[in-house]
Structures are given as structure tokens and as C-alpha cells.
């Protein structure tokens, strides 16, 4: 059904495509600018937080240190175990980068989570993919690692025909893809949800007199969902990093 002209245009995936700031360059768009801004924000924050490191930390230093300690202890040490130290920089970068970019989705005037464009989470997932396979290959060697993935011990031989493709597909395709899709889908759906309520409320406000009274409810739900969205954004950043840590842990673990 086509809506009559002047009717409400529901938000769609077209709202995620931005025209360039200047000229026709595809690289001068809002998501890219947000990515660079996030890098700047993170660098400045941790640089300032670490600059005057003191035994009795300032509030800024304390904030920076607690984020670091959360990733190092909660995600690195407790999950990877033993040999976690060399993966902490990667995990920490991943966590802060995704977190700041997600939260940009509800910061006034920025209001766009860059991770709702599929390219960004895909690249992060591919990085994770390279890191955990490289860690495993470095530790076990290519042949034994592949053998460990492909052949579970203790099952009859002919079952391998059915199970080996599944193992290979899980390790090399499904894991990175689901990792990227989970982050992308959450950010995309969340942003769309907020758009529906805020744009809908705005549309109702300009409608006939009876509809104006409904509009505040739409805005109220929109605001409530903004807080819910904040929760989802933090959670997704955590889950992405958690899964990365789990994959690394699985790659380093000895098969028993």
C-alpha cells in the first residue's frame, strides 16, 4: 500500500545512507567522520587519563584505569588464562572502539552508531578471525590445528563425512559472520527503533489536533528506548569482546 503524499514516511534502510559532506567522494560521509572522531576521543581520553599517573589517582585516571582493569581482568585474565597479557591490547582496543562508536548512537547531534553500517563490524570480526587463528597456528602448528578442528576423537570414521564440513564451516565462516552480524543487527535495529518513535512523534505533532495529544507518548517511549538502547550498546560492545576472548581461549587450549 502506497502512503498518500504528505503521509508518514516510515524510516527505512535509506536512513542509513548519507550523502558526502562535499563533492562526490564516498569517503567523506558521517559514519567515517564518526569513526575518526571516536579514535580521537579515545586517544585524548586515555592520554589525559594516563598523563599524570599518580599513586592516588585523580578521578579521570580512576575512570581510565577501571575500564582497563575491567577488560584486562574480566575478559583477559579470567577467560584466556595463563598467556593473556599479549592479547590485552587487542581486546582493550576492540572494547573501547566499539563502545564509543555505539554510544555515539545516542549522543545528541552525532546520533548515529557507525556499527550499523555492515562494513565496520565486518572488518572488526575479520581482525578477530585473523588473531585467533594466528594464535592457534603459532602455538600448535598449521597441520595439527586443522586436524584438531576437523577430526573429533572417539567417533566412528564414516561420521566424519557429515561432521567435518560442519566443523570447518563453523570455525572459518559462521563464527566471524555471526560475530559481525550480531553487532550490526543490534545497532541497526536499535537505531531504526529510535527513528520510528522520534520521527513518528514528530509527524504526529504536525498532524490534526487530536493526534497532537498522542505525540508526547511517542516521544516518551522514544526517550525510554534511548536508555534501553544505551544498555544494548554497552552490552554489545562487551559481548563482541567477550566472544573474541573466548575464541582466543579456545584456540590456545589444549585438546584433551
Amino acid at each position, binding site marked *: 500500500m502506497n502512503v498518500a503524499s504528505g503521509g508518514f514516511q516510515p524510516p527505512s534502510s535509506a536512513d542509513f545512507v548519507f550523502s558526502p559532506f562535499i563533492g562526490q567522494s564516498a569517503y567523506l560521509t558521517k559514519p567515517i567522520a564518526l569513526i575518526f572522531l571516536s579514535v580521537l576521543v579515545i586517544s585524548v581520553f586515555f592520554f589525559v587519563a594516563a598523563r599524570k599517573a599518580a599513586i592516588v589517582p585523580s578521578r579521570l585516571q580512576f575512570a581510565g584505569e577501571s575500564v582497563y582493569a575491567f577488560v584486562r581482568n574480566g575478559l583477559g585474565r579470567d577467560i584466556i588464562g595463563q598467556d593473556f597479557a599479549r592479547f590485552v591490547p587487542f581486546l582493550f582496543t576492540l572494547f573501547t572502539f566499539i563502545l564509543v562508536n555505539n554510544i555515539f548512537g545516542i549522543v545528541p547531534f552525532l546520533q548515529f552508531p557507525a556499527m550499523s553500517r555492515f562494513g565496520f563490524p565486518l572488518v572488526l570480526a575479520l581482525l578477530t578471525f585473523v588473531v585467533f587463528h594466528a594464535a592457534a597456528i603459532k602455538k600448535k602448528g598449521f597441520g595439527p590445528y586443522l586436524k584438531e578442528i576437523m577430526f573429533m576423537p572417539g*567417533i566412528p570414521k564414516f561420521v566424519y563425512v557429515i561432521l567435518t564440513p560442519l566443523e570447518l564451516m*563453523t570455525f572459518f565462516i559462521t563464527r566471524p559472520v555471526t560475530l559481525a552480524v550480531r553487532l550490526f543487527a543490534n545497532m541497526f535495529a536499535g537505531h531504526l527503533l529510535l527513528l520510528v518513535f522520534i520521527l513518528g512523534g514528530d509527524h504526529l505533532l504536525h498532524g490534526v489536533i487530536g493526534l497532537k495529544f498522542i505525540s508526547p507518548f511517542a516521544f516518551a517511549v522514544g526517550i525510554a528506548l534511548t536508555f534501553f538502547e544505551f544498555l544494548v550498546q554497552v552490552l554489545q560492545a562487551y559481548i563482541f569482546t567477550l566472544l573474541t576472548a573466548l575464541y582466543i581461549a579456545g584456540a590456545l587450549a589444549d585438546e584433551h
Partner: protein
Amino acid sequence: MSQNGSPETDPQDAGDGAAWSIVSYLLSGLIFWGGAGWLLDHWLGTKIFLLVGLVLGAAASLYLIWLRYGRQ
């Protein structure tokens, strides 16, 4: 807090990652064997192999999950 990680947390404890990996395995099973069935259907002009593939894939994934996480 030792540098070498706390000894009481066993990183191989299935619990933390199992739920996520299970979904990955199930997706792989359904997509791989379901896809194989779909291709076979496409090739032979039949309609049955897709369902056969999906059931086989789901069964294979469940068996694999049992091997990984259910076996004591």
C-alpha cells in the same frame, strides 16, 4: 592476583562460551546440509532434498554439540 591467571578459573569451563558456540554450530549444520539439499533440488528438479538436508543438518549439529559439550 598472580600474573599467571587465577588457578581456580578453568578457561576450558564449557559454560561461558557454550551458548554462543551452539548457535554457530546449528547455523552451520542447517546452512551447509540444507544448502546441499537445496542445490540437489535445484539440479534434479525435486522438492524433497531440501527438507532431508535440513533435518540431516540439524541432527548432525545436535550430535556434534553433544560430542563437544554433553559428553561427560
